[in-house]
């Protein structure tokens, strides 16, 4: 593959060109209620060629690998329609590596479909049998074995194997017209072994669904809110992380003024990092999809904005160093600036310290989802507990938090000492590319004056 790719890229006429080819195979099955209602096997083969000419990009997506050279030439022709200025593209180390696959105790390609079904069914039965109020369940198992081949016109080449196993466990409980759900998931770049032994998660999902039936909706209003680790991780990713993606910034002076390096965003205790090289992270890869080696990048250090995430193009245009954050979700797409493993570094406070002096507040747990539109964010906690007189009090449902990210970061007044990573199987979406596996981590965070939506 390497020689064919290199030959196709030779003397392309572009300032820069690359080819990424992917071969993938996977299985997927799902239970809904007692029955397995979905099972399929898929395979794919395809590639994308990109060319950069005088600052403009051309791209060609294909799945017939027959004539790679003409694909590259077509990408160059497209780029010529676009390029009108000088190419600015940051230098990157030339890489040459065949990355060994991550350790898989049990390669899922060798596990019989019958066993995959049995494992998923056991979780499903556990949730269905949790209690009479459990009305239905959703369990899905998915595995994908993805092989990526990358070559560029500068002579870089890598091959990487990216296995991914995802298990999602959902329970729905009903009491009259009231329907509540509980959800847990697991996603890892590993073998089938990580799909086993998740009974505690299944039980937690079912228990949450049932418990929420007797929980009142949270009263809408403004509260002191403590986010648990999973929700803190979503907040760091959704509300702040996306604004650090330089493709939003580099040609937008006003955004750059808002995100100017050196600006204070929070208290001295606040540190936010994105690290694509972190061993074992869900967003970990040795190289990004432009062949740049991943690394640890501080975004906020001691409350001050110190860095952001780059592709080679955005790094050059903003005259900053590459960060290894150009990622693509698959062969149908060019790489764009994305997060890898994003986390809030732990502080000093114990959970007791965070909650002690909160008279009336909300302890918000886990995530159902999160979304941002520029500085505005909305994220849904799976559930919450009211905090009354410094104690965790009753369970409440329908907890949706909203606000302005700049104000909210400033309002983080205490940071826990208990960093934890969400092991969920979800992924990030941007520019039509999803789900991209990302890591989300945080300690408990306390935030003042958060708007909580709810029925009044």
């Amino acid at each position: 593959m390497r020689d064919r790719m290199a030959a196709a890229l030779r003397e392309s006429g572009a300032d820069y060109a690359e080819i990424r080819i992917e071969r993938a195979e996977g299985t997927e099955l799902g239970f809904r209620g007692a029955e397995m209602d979905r099972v399929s096997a898929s395979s794919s083969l395809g590639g994308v060629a990109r060319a950069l000419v005088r600052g403009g990009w051309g791209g060609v997506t294909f799945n017939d690998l027959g004539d790679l050279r003409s694909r590259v030439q077509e990408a160059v022709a497209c780029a010529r329609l676009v390029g009108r200025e000088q190419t600015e593209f940051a230098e990157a180390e030339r890489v040459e590596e065949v990355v060994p696959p991550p350790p898989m105790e049990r390669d899922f390609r060798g596990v019989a479909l019958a066993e995959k079904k049995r494992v998923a069914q056991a979780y499903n039965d556990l949730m269905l049998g949790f209690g009479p109020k459990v009305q239905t369940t959703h369990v899905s198992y998915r595995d994908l074995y993805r092989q990526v081949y990358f070559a560029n016109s500068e002579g870089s080449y890598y091959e990487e194997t990216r296995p991914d196993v995802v298990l999602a466990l959902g329970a729905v409980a009903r009491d009259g017209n009231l329907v509540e759900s509980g959800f847990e998931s697991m996603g890892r770049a590993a073998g089938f072994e990580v799909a086993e032994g998740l009974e505690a998660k299944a039980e937690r999902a079912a228990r949450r669904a049932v418990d929420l039936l007797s929980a009142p909706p949270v009263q809408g209003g403004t509260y002191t809110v403590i986010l648990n680790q999973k929700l803190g991780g979503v907040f760091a990713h959704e509300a702040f992380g996306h604004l650090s993606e330089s493709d939003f910034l580099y040609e937008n002076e006003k955004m750059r003024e808002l995100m100017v390096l050196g600006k204070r965003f929070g208290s001295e205790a606040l540190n936010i990092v994105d690290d694509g090289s972190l061993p074992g992270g869900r967003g970990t890869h040795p190289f990004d999809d432009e062949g740049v080696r991943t690394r640890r990048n501080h975004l906020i250090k001691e409350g001050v904005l110190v860095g952001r995430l780059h592709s080679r193009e955005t790094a050059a245009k903003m005259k900053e160093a590459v960060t290894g954050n150009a990622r693509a979700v698959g062969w149908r797409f060019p790489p764009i600036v994305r997060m890898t493993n994003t986390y809030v570094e732990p502080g000093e406070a114990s959970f007791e310290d965070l909650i002690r002096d909160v008279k009336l507040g909300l302890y918000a747990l886990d995530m159902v989802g999160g979304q941002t539109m520029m500085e505005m964010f909305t994220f849904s906690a799976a559930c919450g507990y009211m905090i009354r007189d410094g104690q965790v009090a009753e369970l409440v449902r329908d907890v949706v938090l909203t606000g302005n990210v700049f104000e909210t970061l400033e309002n983080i007044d205490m940071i826990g000492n208990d960093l934890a990573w969400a092991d969920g199987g979800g992924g990030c979406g941007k520019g039509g590319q999803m789900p991209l596996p990302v890591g989300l981590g945080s300690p408990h965070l306390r935030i003042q004056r958060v708007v909580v939506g709810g029925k009044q």
Partner: protein
Amino acid sequence: MIERALQLAMRKAEGAEVGLSRGRSAGARYEDDKLKGVDVAQTASLGIRVIVDGKVGSAHTTDLGDIEGVVARAAAVAEFGSEATFNFPGPAEAPEVETYDPEVERTSREELVETGAEMLALVKEYNGEIKVSSGASWHVGERRLINSSGLDLSKQGSSFDVSVGGVLIRGTDMLMAWHGRQWRRKEARAREAAERAIEKFRMAERTAQAASKTMPVILTPRGTYVLLVSLGMGVNGKNVQKGDSPLAGRMGESIASPSLTLVDDRTVPYAPASGSHDGEGVPGRRTEIISEGVLTSFLYDLETAGKAGTTSTGNGPGCYASNTLIVPGEAALGEMVRGTREGLLVESVMGLGQSNVMNGDFSVNVALGYKIENGEVVGRVKNVMLAGNVYEALKAVEGAGSEAEWSGATCAPAILVGALSVVARG
């Protein structure tokens, strides 16, 4: 190739279906006032479904060199598949539905680049401070579907898309607005899309405060998706069959205001989800889902219909809606606004899908919405949430607007909901 896949499959299977799709596309995209890229694609994929020992299996590939593999995987999967409650359909009478316009593919890359530039220039002309993004693209494809009941369908489809929008930053305030149009026929819609995007920016030039209370909310044609996402799940025959839909068992009941009629229609010429057949080869049709507030039909595919003892409504596979139409009412949007003393006009929300969508619950941030005071739009609202339940809101609908508008595969007028809970930052 496709015949060979069917022959191979039928060595083991009682029934089989093979679909082969080939597509080509081209597009130009502008971001932050600049032409960023021109992209083209040439892709193909093959999907197969088999019935082996009374059970269904499926497999899919984009590697057309691996026909044996995909057939073998479908057969292997069938051992664990659901019971086949249907037969693949044979040839049948189907409506003629226009889905292909040869002009689409004749559009050069250069013209796409020019169309994007034209939209961008119009928005910049209104306000040079707006960072504008725009795009023009087309997609054409051929799909052939054959099955063991003698069906052999070939169809061509095309799609021409334009979109334009931008972000306006003032201090820490960021306003995003956009407008897009997707249609199977090439139409000159660039100027219109830009004008619609400009209109949204213009209405947001001023800001207004909303108080936390229950008030009337007018959903713009695009804003109706707040209601339609849950409703689409609720009328999905599979969700009904599983008992997950709150509409299960309520056929014939009044579930919405009499001013609401909702239709699924695959036969609209050139609409985004139109076709003479669905993905399983069942003829496309028009199905009234809600008639003047009364629930009249769910949407079915072959498998779900087989289990329910009914016939497919041509919404396979998956029981998903094709084109969703809300039948327009009497009042123009302007009249609805003039008749509102205090309320909101909502164009888009974010966070939909984070509450219990199946149950109809929503608690969403208003991404682009306007305050109405004494019959006039007075400005854009910020930091405001809408909370409620779709099925309660449907009963509180007080009227549908007179002008329906396409957005993706939905054609809806504005909808006035008499009372919704609005939560503002206090």
